[in-house]
């Protein structure tokens, strides 16, 4: 039977752990709300941009933008999006695992030749890839502190200018897509060269637009914006997913702590009863011994 004092100390410690996990869950729930709001805010812009671009590219052929150029894949850049903090279940581990798989699958040769570069967004990826001697560029741990379009823009500009300058021939981004609070979809997307968007909407070219300055120039001008938006969306999704994942993880942890507490309280009460029974036994037998004299 466990010692009374030990059990009491354990109960206190599990109790305080439970309080922490409960608080973290509530904080994450609040932050999740804000993160999903940001996604909702961004959506009309992204959709409209995609519409216009799809509408215009459908009737345009052979437009050569520096961002759509297909080249032989010598240098590869991976953008890996994780979070700054842990305690979010398998959230970060999943992204890193997916990135590793992608490298093993498609870019093994590039990695051996040292032509694989990585931009890590979020401290967890930064730490992991630096530790494992990958070629990590820059440091983007601050992005999630104030996530907005300007911050995402800086990274996108860097990625795009590197692509145009020929520093890398293909850019892929690995991140958690946000489905709902309990579900993230691990996603790998090609950022550059830009994959021409196919127009699925039936009402294309429903009007004869005046186009200024010209169709080509509009399309060329919009492609960089669409790349920026794609990256920004990845960041927002990952941010929301992080809080979703943390919320679920902390909810589970709180629940587990509750179960543990129940079991501990039971054994505490058993120990207490046993010791009382023992004491009574001793008193009674002592009294009996005295009476017998």
């Amino acid at each position: 039977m466990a010692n009374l004092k030990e059990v009491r100390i354990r109960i206190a410690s599990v109790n305080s752990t439970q309080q922490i996990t409960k608080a973290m869950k509530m904080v994450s729930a609040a932050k999740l709300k804000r993160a999903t709001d940001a996604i909702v805010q961004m959506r009309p812009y992204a959709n409209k941009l995609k519409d216009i671009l799809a509408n215009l590219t459908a009737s345009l052929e052979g437009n050569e933008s520096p961002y759509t150029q297909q080249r032989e894949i010598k240098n590869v850049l991976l953008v890996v999006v994780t979070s700054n903090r842990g305690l979010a279940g398998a959230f970060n581990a999943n992204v890193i695992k997916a990135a590793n798989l992608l490298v093993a699958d498609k870019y093994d040769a590039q990695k051996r030749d040292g032509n694989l570069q990585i931009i890590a967004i979020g401290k967890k990826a930064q730490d992991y890839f630096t530790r494992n001697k990958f070629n990590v560029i820059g440091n983007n741990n601050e992005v999630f502190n104030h996530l907005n379009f300007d911050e995402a823009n800086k990274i996108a500009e860097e990625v795009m200018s590197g692509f145009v300058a020929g520093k890398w021939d293909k850019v892929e981004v690995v991140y958690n897509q946000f489905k709902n609070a309990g579900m993230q979809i691990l996603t790998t997307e090609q950022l550059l060269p830009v994959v021409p968007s196919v127009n699925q909407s039936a009402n294309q070219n429903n009007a004869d637009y005046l186009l200024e300055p010209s169709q080509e120039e509009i399309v060329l001008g919009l492609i960089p914006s669409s790349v920026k938006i794609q990256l920004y969306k990845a960041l927002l999704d990952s941010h929301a997913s992080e809080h979703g994942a943390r919320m679920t993880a902390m909810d589970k942890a709180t629940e587990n702590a509750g179960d543990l507490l129940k079991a501990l309280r039971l054994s505490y009460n058993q120990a207490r009863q046993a010791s009382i029974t023992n004491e009574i036994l001793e008193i009674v037998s002592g009294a009996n011994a005295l009476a017998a004299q």
Partner: protein
Amino acid sequence: MQLDILTPDKKVFSGEVSAVSVPGAKGSFEVLNNHAPIISTLEKGMVKLTGKDGKMEFEITGGVIEVLNNKVIVLAESI
């Protein structure tokens, strides 16, 4: 006509206006009611609109405007 000014971070303006002038790539132009459908890229400059509550101005760094059936959408990169 209905005007929406959108940025990736938020919806900056949404409402009825009678006129809006934008810094087009080929020079500034004004969109009034029943304007022909147009898509144009925008330069850095001011978006000026006249609505029910008077005139308003936004400074944008670039973007694109679409006008269709009295619905105007301005996508601005930042404001």
